[in-house]
C-alpha cells in the first residue's frame, strides 16, 4: 500500500490566551488520512478548526498533542514541504512583482532549474488564463486573478499534495468554474488535494471524501457518497420516459406493500450551470452578430 499524502493522528491544538490562565482548544483529538490522488474536503463553520488543522499539516503551527505527516515525513520537518503547494485564503503575494515574476520567485524557491522554470511559468499562466496579464504587477490584479495566480504558484513545482483554503472565495461563477476544472485536472494528474471551502456545492462536486468539523471536533468523516446517501430511498433518473410507462411504474410502486412513492418530477440543474450556459450562449450570440 502506498504512503498516504497526509496522515493526521490524534491531533490536538491548544492556544493559550495572552497572560490569562485561559485556553482555547482549537482542534480536539482528530484523525484522518488523505490518500494519494484523492480530493479531500474539510468543511465546517467559521472557527471550527479547519485552518488550524491545515496550518499544523503545513508546519506553520506545532501540534499540542498528536502528529501530522506528509508522505510519511513529519510536518515539522522542512523536507515534508517538498511535495506541497498551498493557496491561503485571500492571498496577496508581493504586489511589486508581476504575475510572471511571482511564478519565477516561487519556482526558484522550490529549486526549479532556469530552463524548466521558464516553460513551466508559461504553461501555468496559460492554464490559469493569465497570459495577457503576465507582465502586469499584482497590485493591478483583481481578486479572481489573484486567486488564479495563487493556484499557479501552489502547483509550480508540480507537487503531489495541494492544500487550498477557500480557493473560490470572492470569485465570479466563471472564475469559480475555472478553478474547479483546475482541481479536477490535478485529480487527473494523481495529485492529492485538501479543499477547505464554505461552498458546499463545489465540495460535493469535486471531493472523494469529506470531513465535517465543528468547534474543533470532527463530527463526520468518510467517502462523500456514503455520507450523503439516503439509505432507505432509491432514485431513478430516466430520459425520454413515456407517460404510459411512468404510470405503470407508479402503479407497481403503489401495489407493493412496503414501497412508497416519495416524489415524481424533473431533475433540477444548478443555478451555476444555468448561469454559465446562459452567459456562454450570450457571448457566442454577440460574437456571431459582430462577425455578421
Amino acid at each position, binding site marked *: 500500500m*502506498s504512503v498516504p499524502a497526509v496522515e493526521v493522528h490524534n491531533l490536538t491544538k491548544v492556544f493559550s490566551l495572552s497572560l490569562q490562565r485561559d485556553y482555547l482548544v482549537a482542534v480536539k483529538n482528530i484523525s484522518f488520512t488523505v*490518500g*494519494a*490522488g*484523492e*480530493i479531500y474536503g474539510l468543511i465546517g463553520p467559521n472557527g471550527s478548526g479547519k485552518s488550524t488543522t491545515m*496550518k499544523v499539516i*503545513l*508546519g*506553520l*503551527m*506545532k501540534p499540542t498533542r498528536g502528529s501530522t505527516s506528509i508522505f510519511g515525513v513529519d510536518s515539522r520537518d*522542512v*523536507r515534508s*514541504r*517538498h511535495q*506541497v*503547494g*498551498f*493557496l*491561503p*485564503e*485571500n*492571498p*496577496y*503575494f*508581493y*504586489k*511589486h*512583482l508581476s504575475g510572471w515574476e511571482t511564478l519565477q*520567485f*516561487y519556482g*526558484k*524557491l*522550490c*529549486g*526549479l532549474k532556469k530552463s*524548466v522554470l521558464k516553460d*513551466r511559468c508559461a504553461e501555468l499562466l496559460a492554464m490559469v488564463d493569465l497570459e495577457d496579464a503576465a507582465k502586469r504587477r499584482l497590485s493591478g490584479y483583481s481578486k479572481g486573478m489573484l486567486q488564479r495566480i*495563487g493556484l499557479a*504558484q*501552489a502547483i509550480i*513545482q*508540480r*507537487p*503531489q499534495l495541494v*492544500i487550498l483554503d477557500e480557493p473560490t472565495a470572492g470569485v465570479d461563477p466563471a472564475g469559480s468554474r475555472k478553478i474547479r476544472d483546475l482541481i479536477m485536472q490535478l*485529480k*487527473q*494528474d*494523481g*495529485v492529492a488535494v485538501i479543499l477547505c471551502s464554505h461552498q458546499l456545492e463545489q465540495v*460535493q*462536486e*469535486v471531493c*472523494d*471524501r469529506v470531513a465535517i468539523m465543528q468547534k474543533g471536533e470532527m463530527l463526520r468523516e468518510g*467517502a*462523500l*457518497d456514503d455520507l450523503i446517501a439516503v439509505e432507505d430511498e432509491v432514485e431513478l433518473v430516466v430520459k425520454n420516459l413515456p407517460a404510459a410507462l411512468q404510470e405503470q411504474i407508479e402503479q407497481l410502486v403503489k401495489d407493493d406493500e412496503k414501497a412508497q412513492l416519495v416524489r415524481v418530477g424533473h431533475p433540477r440543474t444548478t443555478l451555476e450551470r444555468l448561469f454559465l450556459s446562459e452567459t456562454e450562449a450570450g457571448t457566442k450570440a454577440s460574437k456571431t452578430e459582430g462577425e455578421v
Partner: protein
Amino acid sequence: MASDSSEQVRDQTKRVEPLVKSPPIFSAQRVWVLMASTFTQLVRMKTFYFLAIFALLVIAASNLNLLYTPVQQLKVIRETSLGAMSIFSWLFAITATAVLIPRDLEDRTLYTILCKPVPRLEYLVGKLLGVLAVIGVALALMCGLFTVILHFQETSIIASEMHHMAQNPRFTEEDRITEAAMIAAYGPDLNLLYGVLAVFLKSAVLAAVAMLVSTFASSSLFTIIITFVVFLIGHFHKMATDFWVVEQQGGWITRMIGKVMILVIPDFQIFNISDSISSGQVVGLATMVEMSGLAALYLGLFTIASWFVFSDKEF
C-alpha cells in the same frame, strides 16, 4: 462524481512526476532568491529617491563659500556627505527591516513562502541580506558621487590656490607644494572608503538587531522604537562598561543589569570613525579588519538569536 474510492482513484489517474527530486536542506540559491526579492521590493518602494536628495546636499555643501579656508571647504563636504550617508543608512536599516517580516505576515506571503521547502533560517538570512544589499548599493552610489564631487572641488581649489600663491612673491615653491599637499589630504582617499565601510557595518549590525526584535514584536512601530533605543544605548557602551564593570559602581542588581545590557547590546561607538575621517585623521587597516570582524560576530549572533525565536513562532 465523487464516488471513486481512494484505490480506484489511484488506478484511474496517471501520476505526474514532480519537477524537483529532492531539494537540499540548506540552499544558497534560495537565500539568493529571497535576497533578490527583498532587494527588488525595497527598490520598487522608491528607496533610491534618497540619492537625489543626497546629490543635492553634496552639491549644495560643495558650493558653500562662507569665508571658509580651502581645507575647511573640503572638510564641510566630507562631513556633510558622511553624515548624510550615516543617517540614511541607519534610518533605512531600522525601518526597512522592521516592516519586512510583519508585512509578509499581514499579506500571508509568509505562509506561501514557508510552505515551500524553505527553512526559516534561510528566510531570515535572505531578508537581512536583501536589506544590506540595498544599503550597500545606495552607499556605493553615494560614495561614487561624493568622491567625484570631492575630487573636482579638490582639483579646483588647489588650482585656484596655486594661482593666487604664484602671483604673490612671498610664497616659495616649497610653500606651494606644502599647501597643495595639505589640501589634498582632505580630498578623496582610502580613508573615505574606510569611513563608508564603517557606516555600512554599523547599519548591518543595526539591521540585525531590528530583525531580532521584529521576530517577537507585535508591531513594526514597536520594533522601530526598541531598535532605536538599543541604538542609542549602544553609543554609551564604553561608558557603561567603565561604570558597571571596571569601577564596579552601583548596587549588585544594577551591576548585573548593566552587565547583561553590555553583553546583549552591541557597541555602536566603535563604528563611529566618520568624525576622525572628516577631520583628515588616518585610520589603519588593522582597525578596519578588527571592526569588520566584530560586525560579523554581531551579525552572526543576532541572526542565530533571531532564528532561535523565529523557528518556534507559530503563524
